[in-house]
């Protein structure tokens, strides 16, 4: 295909991606260097029969004029990145200087909003992803062995948790684990503790979110593995059987190696999707105990008075850096494959 025809076919798609994905990233980078205007205050003197009082208020007119002039705010350089709600260099130095032991350092770092979100996001990504792959694989093996007539309905119901919106899915579970809901009541009866609530402690909230994550994504791994199982070469399986391999050995030495590329694919998709986990935090109202990087950005943009664009943009830039670090091995591998082909 000639360059010209290629461009003729692809330009609308490229334009959309440049305008609404590439440029916004530039815009985020630009915004992260600015910070909201300081409030312009004015003093008003009220004189009444009992003397004069001065009151201080925000000068709305002057503020509007300022915003008109510089919509992004005033220039702050890299200040936003370094402040307490982002990388918090000063706070970290202070914590290391004044803390007695490791436990204290940990608790104090967990109180810094950015690190709290980063640690949860990483924990979620690296705990949910392997569990999804393992559970999905087990379901696929088992479903593959049941009678054919049952497979359709099983796949139908398995797809639900994955295709339903994360927000809706997490709400459905959230209502069930409510202390007045069915699972919440069941757990209370099981542990004989009428005050047990999954929402109360950070640990339980974390576990609930991990369980949700696995529930939501396992069907994806299941379907991919299930499709892969249909293509496992039967003669290899049979020759393994002739060689006296047991059922488990056949899975271990034939099926698993054969499905390895699929596991890599699932891992890649899951890493990308789990790193941006966001809706479950809202669905489970978990923000007090667990936040994620995406949630921090959302929260800044939703700030009560006016959106904190600078702060949201700085968190966004740091998140993007995280995504790129996460994808680096994949990109490198693709690059090597591509060069080998060329």
């Amino acid at each position: 295909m000639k360059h010209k025809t290629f461009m003729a076919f692809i330009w609308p798609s490229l334009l959309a991606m440049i305008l609404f994905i590439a440029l916004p990233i530039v815009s985020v980078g630009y915004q992260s260097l600015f910070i909201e205007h300081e409030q312009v205050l004015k003093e008003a003197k009220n004189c009444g029969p009992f003397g004069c009082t001065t009151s201080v208020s925000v000068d709305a007119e002057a503020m509007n004029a300022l915003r008109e002039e510089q919509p992004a705010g005033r220039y702050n350089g890299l200040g936003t990145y370094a402040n307490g709600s982002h990388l918090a260099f000063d706070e970290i130095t202070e914590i290391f200087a004044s803390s007695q032991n490791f436990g204290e350092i940990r608790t104090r770092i967990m109180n810094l909003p950015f690190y709290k979100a980063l640690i949860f996001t990483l924990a979620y990504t690296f705990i949910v992803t392997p569990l999804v792959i393992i559970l999905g694989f087990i379901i696929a093996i088992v479903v593959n062995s049941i009678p054919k007539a049952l497979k359709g309905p099983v796949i139908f119901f398995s797809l639900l948790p994955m295709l339903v919106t994360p927000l809706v899915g997490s709400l459905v579970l959230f209502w069930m684990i409510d202390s007045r809901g069915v699972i919440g009541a069941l757990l209370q009866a099981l542990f004989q503790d009428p005050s047990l609530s999954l929402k109360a402690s950070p640990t339980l909230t974390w576990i609930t979110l991990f369980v949700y994550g696995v529930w939501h994504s396992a069907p994806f791994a299941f379907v991919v593995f299930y499709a892969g199982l249909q293509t496992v070469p039967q003669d290899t399986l049979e020759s393994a059987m002739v060689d006296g391999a047991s059922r488990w050995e056949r899975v271990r030495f034939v099926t698993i190696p054969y499905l390895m590329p699929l596991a890599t694919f699932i891992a890649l998709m899951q890493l990308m999707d789990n790193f941006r986990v966001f809706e479950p935090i809202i669905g489970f109202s978990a923000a007090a105990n667990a936040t994620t990087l995406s949630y921090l950005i959302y929260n800044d943009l939703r700030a009560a008075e006016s959106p904190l664009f600078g702060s949201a943009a700085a968190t966004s830039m740091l998140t993007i850096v995280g995504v790129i670090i996460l994808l680096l091995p994949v990109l490198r591998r693709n690059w090597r494959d591509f060069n080998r082909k060329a």
Partner: protein
Amino acid sequence: MSIPAHRKPPSLILLSTGFVLFWLVIAAFPFLWTMWGSFKVEGDFFSRADWMNALTGPVTVKQHGSAFTLDGYEGAWIQQEFWKSVINTGIVTFFVVTISLTLGTLGGYALARSEFKYTFWILMAALVFRAMPHVTLVSGYLLPFFEMNIWGYLPTTIIVLVAINQPFTLWMLHSFFLSIPKDLDEAAMVDGCTRFQAFRLAIIPVMWPGVVTTGLFSFLLAYNDFTVTSMLLNQDNLTMIPKLNGFLGSTQEDGKVMYAVAAVVSAIVPLFVLILFFQRQIVSGLTAGAVKG
């Protein structure tokens, strides 16, 4: 097949049947439970006394005379105007699917047929774009959109969703096009077709399965989106998912939480129907990326 070596010991059959049932309960029970519960009043769905109340609904019987009530649905759809959001969701999904498929088939075809180095870079860029958390992009849009005064309109949201959807659509259609032999369009061009005619007359007719599958996933993305729609639409033209999230914030009073339950069920039912009809396409779509690339 009943070759003796393939026959399984009964203990294994028991174990695997048990596991499948266990998984089915985990996957399906929450939805069935919520659907059943959405026809009850709050006192039953969130019962302090006994969880069995959610099944039999004694409070619902006391208040309405029957074990089922449409109160939640009436409150959500009519009182809180959920029907408006349903229409908005319809508009948004329709246009997102049509536009992303049009752009995606053109682009995916070009990527599958060109052998120059830049196709690799475009695909890699698309992969990185696909991994971007949507909310980081939204924080890039908000300020410019406010400045240009295009914030809060459906068309803006549609275009943004199309763009966010492009990397995925391109990858998927690209791998579908790769599976169609090159000879097909080359033969058409030998017969005197231009490149575009070959694309339209020779390739598109055999591409329908791929287009339908990709369309399904574009639909799901637009239908399920919360991040973009909740930040880019104003209160009057929200789509279903952000609207339903609004119910949670404003309706802490007695009984109102059932509006949210009813809305959640209303949002799930279309997906149920979708899976019912398109199960095979969805499964093939999920695996298309895996098997081919």
